[in-house]
């Protein structure tokens, strides 16, 4: 290790002494309570909870994945279900906490496939970028948000349903965030690059949440769960041709995605190339430093030249700001000729920031120690007249002709969160959820799915789905129905019989879920399923429509939606059959935690 200055040594010693002093000042733990850091205590408590076995005995257990079980039990350990079966046939550990409901009914925690809980009501009127993640601005806002868990809803998909009409207007802006997150927030110029697209079509990205008592938690890795698109003007009077024009404009949002993808791919490849060239550049200088240490002349061995370059003339405006002050033409930066970087764009690949900083520090060190040995600065040969200049003319610095040319950082394509989101839809990483009401809007959405090859399409509300049920089934789209209550739709939607729609979709083989659409209707989710039963849907399918099927649509069926061993302990206990109007919630367990218990 190289000898440091005396002041540095003294500083280091002082730091060590200060640390020892601080430790000595810590109060000694009480002899009866061994000192534990808070994190360890919390971890211990969590582990105890994780190991806790809870048994729920009830008159009827409805697993959903199988037939109902009379006198059934559900056994959970920690966050997960470990057993479901008939009482007496399932082993129950001795230390289990037993909840007994002799006349009760046990269900999986309900899954609400569409709600506006925790969202900002202001977003219903504004425009949202397809890349805007609602998860960043979810809060417990409304007095009814807390009802989700009381209603037995343990998983919910949160999005905002716009109330405005689709119309020409200013380009959508990203959701205003409470704090800057450059990696998530688009820049104003990115939004304006979308041109005069119809407003109100893109509705951001919804999130999957787990409602809790007085709060919620985001489902891990599901903060961006789907891209929301609105392809309806609502029940207001509109002409069919006008609607068609607006729908065409909505489809146009998918234009240019492949070009954007190519630009992104090209940039990634250019970055890899840059990383390699820069690594070579650093290696050359390290080699030179080593040679100088050994007292040898700076290496005059052929330096690896940047591939594919002649006399470097970087395009105007594309060189990083820490670019080459030693000149713009001819060779690359000489030893020490470059200024320290002021702004460093994020680099991918092998040459990390740390490595570069280290290399640069070494170079500066060398220069500081033995400046005499450096060659005097040489004047660069005059540039050709048509060569673009980079910034102010730099003073003449020493530059070795043998030094490799410093590679040029490739220009990144303009950030476009909306296009990135839509690419994720095309690639099947995110579902596309389309709010469409009338049959022509639904047909358009299906046509768009076919034309754009959208793998996962979910149709929301879909009041007029009866006439396109066969098409929906054929294309494998799913449907999330809201407002499944008698005579609940305004004119002219009152011609659609929404309560009869579930039975019709079921008969047509369409995967569908029944959802509340609003936090205010959280308690009414079972009622909506009951209304569907009253219009011909069988009870099993109705129960599935508010449990396992929405879980499948949301992509979380592996963890919730039914009472099966291995799934999360999301359990709802009611005092009577779920579809009776006076059925009351007795207990709600979510991920093994008791979130609600009736007094």
């Amino acid at each position: 290790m190289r000898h440091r200055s005396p002041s540095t040594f003294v500083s280091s010693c002082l730091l060590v002494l200060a640390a020892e002093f601080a430790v000595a000042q810590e109060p000694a733990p009480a002899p009866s309570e061994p000192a534990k850091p808070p994190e360890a205590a919390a971890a211990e408590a969590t582990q105890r909870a994780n190991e806790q076995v809870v048994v729920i005995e009830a008159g009827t257990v409805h697993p959903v994945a199988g037939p109902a079980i009379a006198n059934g039990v559900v056994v959970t350990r920690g966050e997960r279900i470990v057993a479901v079966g008939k009482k007496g046939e399932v082993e129950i550990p001795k230390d289990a906490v037993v909840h007994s409901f002799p006349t009760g009914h046990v269900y999986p925690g309900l899954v609400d496939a569409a709600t506006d809980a925790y969202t900002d009501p202001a977003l219903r009127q504004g425009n949202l970028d397809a890349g805007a993640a609602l998860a960043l601005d979810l809060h417990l806002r409304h007095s009814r948000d807390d009802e989700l868990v009381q209603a037995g809803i343990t998983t919910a998909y949160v999005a905002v349903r716009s109330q405005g009409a689709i119309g020409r207007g200013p380009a959508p802006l990203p959701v205003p965030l409470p704090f800057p997150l450059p990696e998530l927030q688009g820049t104003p110029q990115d939004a304006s690059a979308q041109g005069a697209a119809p407003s109100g079509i893109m509705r951001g990205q919804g999130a999957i949440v787990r409602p809790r008592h007085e709060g919620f938690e985001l489902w891990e890795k599901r903060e961006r769960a789907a891209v929301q698109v609105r392809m309806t003007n609502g029940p207001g009077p509109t002409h069919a041709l006008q609607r068609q024009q607006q729908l065409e404009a909505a489809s146009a949002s998918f234009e240019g995605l492949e070009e954007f993808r190519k630009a992104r791919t090209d940039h990634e490849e250019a970055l890899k190339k840059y990383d390699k060239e820069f690594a070579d550049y650093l290696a050359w200088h390290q080699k030179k430093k080593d040679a100088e240490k050994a007292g040898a002349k700076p290496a005059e061995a052929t330096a690896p030249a940047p591939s594919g370059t002649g006399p470097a003339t970087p395009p105007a405006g594309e060189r990083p700001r820490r670019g080459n002050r030693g000149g713009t033409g001819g060779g690359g930066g000489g030893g020490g000729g470059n200024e320290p970087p002021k702004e460093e764009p994020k680099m991918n690949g092998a040459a990390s920031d740390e490595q570069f900083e280290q290399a640069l520090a070494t170079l500066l060190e060398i220069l500081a120690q033995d400046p005499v040995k450096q060659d005097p600065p040489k004047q660069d040969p005059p540039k050709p007249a048509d060569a673009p200049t980079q910034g102010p003319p730099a003073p003449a610095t020493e530059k070795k002709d043998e030094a490799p040319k410093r590679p040029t950082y490739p220009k990144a394509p303009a950030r476009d969160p909306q296009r990135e989101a839509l690419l994720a839809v095309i690639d099947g990483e995110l579902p596309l959820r389309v709010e469409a009401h009338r049959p022509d809007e639904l047909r358009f959405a299906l046509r768009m799915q076919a034309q754009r090859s959208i793998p996962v399409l979910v149709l929301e509300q879909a009041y007029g789905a009866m006439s396109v049920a066969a098409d929906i089934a054929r294309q494998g789209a799913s449907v999330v129905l809201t407002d499944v209550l008698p005579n609940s739709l305004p004119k002219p939607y009152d011609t659609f019989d929404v309560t009869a729609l579930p039975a019709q979709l079921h008969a047509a083989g369409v995967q569908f879920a029944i959802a509340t659409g609003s936090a205010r209707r959280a308690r009414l989710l079972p009622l909506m399923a009951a209304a569907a039963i009253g219009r011909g849907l069988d009870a099993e399918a109705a129960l599935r429509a508010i449990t396992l099927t929405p879980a499948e649509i949301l992509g979380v069926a592996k963890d919730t939606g039914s009472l099966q061993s291995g799934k999360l302990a999301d359990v709802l206990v009611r005092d009577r059959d779920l579809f009776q109007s006076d059925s009351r919630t007795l207990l709600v367990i979510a991920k093994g935690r008791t979130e609600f218990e009736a007094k």
Partner: protein
Amino acid sequence: MKSSVNWGSWADGRRGQMSLIVVLLLLCAGSLRCQDLLVQAKRIVVAADTVLDDGMLLVRQGKIAYVGNEIPADARGRAMVVDYGNAVIVPGFVLAQSTLGQDADLGEGALAFTPDLRVAEAFDRWQEELTPLPRHGVTSVALSASPRNVAGGIAALVKPGKDGGTIADHELHLSLSLAQVARNPERQPTSLMGAMDLLRTTFAAARTGTKTGPDAAVLAQVLRGSRRLFVHADTYTELSAALDLAKEFALEPVLVGAGEAEKVLPRLLQQKASVVLGTLLPDARLQQLRLPATLAQAGVPFCFGGSPDQLRLSAVLAVVHGLDRKTALQALTRLPALLLAQQATIGSLRQACAADFLVFSGDPLDLSSAHVATWVDGVRVHGEGGKATAVPAAAAVSTTTNTLGGQ
């Protein structure tokens, strides 16, 4: 024994006998009313406190003739059996107040005070708003004057039917209104205090006899208690004003709307007021959704009103938010009939009541129960007819002949 009527000379002749039988068969062929109906179901809710399991009703000429075990054996033998199997039969829903979307014709726009106008005189039996009523389970409606007038007029009891609607009673209650819609800037009164002053003045004049005329006569009936008073009032201020007026003139009002009724609960009880609630919407405030349960707990009589197509859902929402089923069903049937002073004819399936009933696959207050059929005055106006078993034709003919021969 030979009959003494004119038909006797015909009945003796063979040709006359055959003609008589043919004529009678033709008369009865198109109408079920000629034939008794024996309606059977797993459960018949005659009234909230009277439930028959594996029950039967005998319907004769549009009315309930007998219930359950009271049905005579011979009547059972003659009647056409309509068997609804495992269904539940309840009395038809009574809507205690509605304009059926006819606000324009049921409210005099130029004058605010028209208590003597009669809704029955503006009734259109073919209006399309009557057609869907059976589908929603509504078998009787108190067609009322528009709440746009401070004193709108006298309501009428209307029933839907296969051949248009009918008026069952031309003279129901008087409708007053202290609601916001009654304050019209284009005519007096334009304010709540103006409306109160108008009502107070006119009622006082009617009481002292200084005011005469048809409108005063109607007010006098209300003051005597021979005609009920319905008052539209929603907010606390409006409800308080209505209760003040009722107290001043010793009235027991029926408050329509009463969205903030929980704020005047003690007064409602004290003054024996009743409430006709508006439509309960799924997105209403929790306080609103719990109001029926609150009123029931406090002992305030109430019924469901508002839009006919939301009547059942209103009751179901009330049950979801704490109202017990029995009270909820009463609030759809018996209670509104009581408020309309029609309990002798509608709101239950007791003897002599109109044969207005609904058939459900289960409890009507569970949305999972399908609405199977609606009958009004013994005629099925909506849905399925159940498993009908007709009486053999020969038995019917011989019965008819015997009846005539015996005269």
